[in-house]
């Protein structure tokens, strides 16, 4: 198929030379649509060209060197303006840095305050713990004192022994899982031991027993030093 420049793209030239023009309904619809599009496109392009021409004419007028100034003078002024802008920027930057430094200083101060406050709180908390432990210790000592006075004993070993005996008595009194509640006021049986010996038994005995004191290196030494040491340990 050949393209004929004079006829345009709408025409089709067959091999035998016939020139066919599209005149059917579809071709007519396409032609109508194309025409409408072209006209709209052209209108938009014209408007754009007009705007561009206005811009070009404005820039042409702006680039004009003012009268009475040479190009070097203009450059100098521009450089001066640039330097001024740099100085202004530096100044602003320095101010910003100073502001940031002050802000940092403030934050550091606040941090230190909080840290001190936290430490103070921790110390206070530890002091409270010590106080509560001291109170508990005093309470424990009071309990020991009350136990001592209750049992009439000042000797720890006696106290422990009497408590053990009480526990043993409780354990022995509990039968078959029966619950036993100790009542300190309840009357108790008095333990009595009767001498199984006949009172006259000893009178018929005639002793010939003499036991000498141990002498020599195995003597126990002076007692006062040992007793004083013992009293120191037991706090008497």
């Amino acid at each position, binding site marked *: 198929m050949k393209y004929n420049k004079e006829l345009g793209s709408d025409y089709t030239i067959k091999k035998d030379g016939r020139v066919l023009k599209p005149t059917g309904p579809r071709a007519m619809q396409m032609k109508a649509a194309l025409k409408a599009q072209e006209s709209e496109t052209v209108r938009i392009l014209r408007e754009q060209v007009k705007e561009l021409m206005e811009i070009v004419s404005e820039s042409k007028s702006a680039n004009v060197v003012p009268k009475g100034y040479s190009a070097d003078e203009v450059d100098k002024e521009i450089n001066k303006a640039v330097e001024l802008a740099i100085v202004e920027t530096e100044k602003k930057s320095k101010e910003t840095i100073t502001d940031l430094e002050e802000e940092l200083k403030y934050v550091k101060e606040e941090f230190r305050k909080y840290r001190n406050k936290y430490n103070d709180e921790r110390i206070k908390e530890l002091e409270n713990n010590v106080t509560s432990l001291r109170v508990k210790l005093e309470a424990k000592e009071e309990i020991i004192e009350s136990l001592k006075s209750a049992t009439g004993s000042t000797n720890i*070993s006696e106290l422990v022994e009497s408590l053990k005996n009480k526990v043993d008595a409780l354990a022995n009194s509990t039968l078959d899982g029966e619950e036993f509640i100790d009542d300190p006021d309840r009357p108790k049986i008095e333990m009595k031991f009767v001498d199984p010996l006949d009172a006259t038994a*000893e009178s018929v*005995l005639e002793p010939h027993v003499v036991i000498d004191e*141990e002498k020599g290196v195995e003597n*126990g*030494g002076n007692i006062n030093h040992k007793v004083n040491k013992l009293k120191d340990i037991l706090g008497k």
Partner: protein
Amino acid sequence: MGNKGLDIGTNMLVAASVDEEDNIIFKMQRDAFYRISPKSEVNKNSIRMGLEKRNANFIVEGHDFIVVGEDALDIAIERNDTAQRPLQRGILSPKDKSSLPMLKLIIESLVGKGSSGDKVVYSVPAKPIDTTFDIVYHTEMMGMYLKQMGYDSQPINEGFAIALSELLDDGLTGICLSYGAGMTNVVVIHQGDPLVEFSMTKSGDFIDQSVGNALDMPASFVQKEKEAGVDLIKPSNQIMEAISVYYSAVVNYTFDNIAYELKKRKKELPLFRDPVPIVVSGGLTLANGFEDKVKQAVSKLDFPFTVGEVRRAEFPMKAVANGCLLAAQL
């Protein structure tokens, strides 16, 4: 007469008192007796002369002689017999009344008669862990007899008495063991406060009987051999070897039980800041190498504190009486 301390042991009675210069003095008597019944009046006179010649202590009861103390043991062995002992396993037996008069006489010969205000602190065993006997009867009866002799009497645990005697330089902190004839007494004490107290029936008599059974010989003979001197590390003959074996058994048994009792009370135990010393006392500890046996037993066990030195009491036969005397002075 003043205050006194009295160690009432199965094998030995020891009294401690103070002389005019405040020095501690001891009196000891073997806790044994042996009855001799003469066959005729002539025989009676010859026996009496014989006893007086060897300076033996004896009691005349009607026609009979009751030899007491060390001579009772010797004469019993000479006659291929066994001496009697007033105490069995460290305490008086309610069933054995016949030996009570002799025991009273021996005690009175040791402490004498007391006057108003005189105090005797006497030792009693701790509650046993391997038998069921009651120590209350023993404690009360001994207190009653001492009262009859004119004393205010006060009982004290045997192990605790050793602690008073031997742990003064350790702030009353340590483990004290009394290896007697009838019983082994144990106390674990912290700054004067007894944490664990118990006794066991395996001690000197157990060794004598076990060796006697093993080698088919009287226990009293084994006892005499043992008391003549034993080297537990290098036993010199078959008897000594057997004695050494049973010594190890008793020592291991003791420390196994101490570790067991401490483990039971682990949560209640205080903090022991320094290594805890072990003090052994009593007749059994006189054997050469006894401390080594203890160290061996301790090394195999895990205690809730560091074990310090193992040492024998300064005077192993007198430590309990000494502790009782110190307690009487407080």
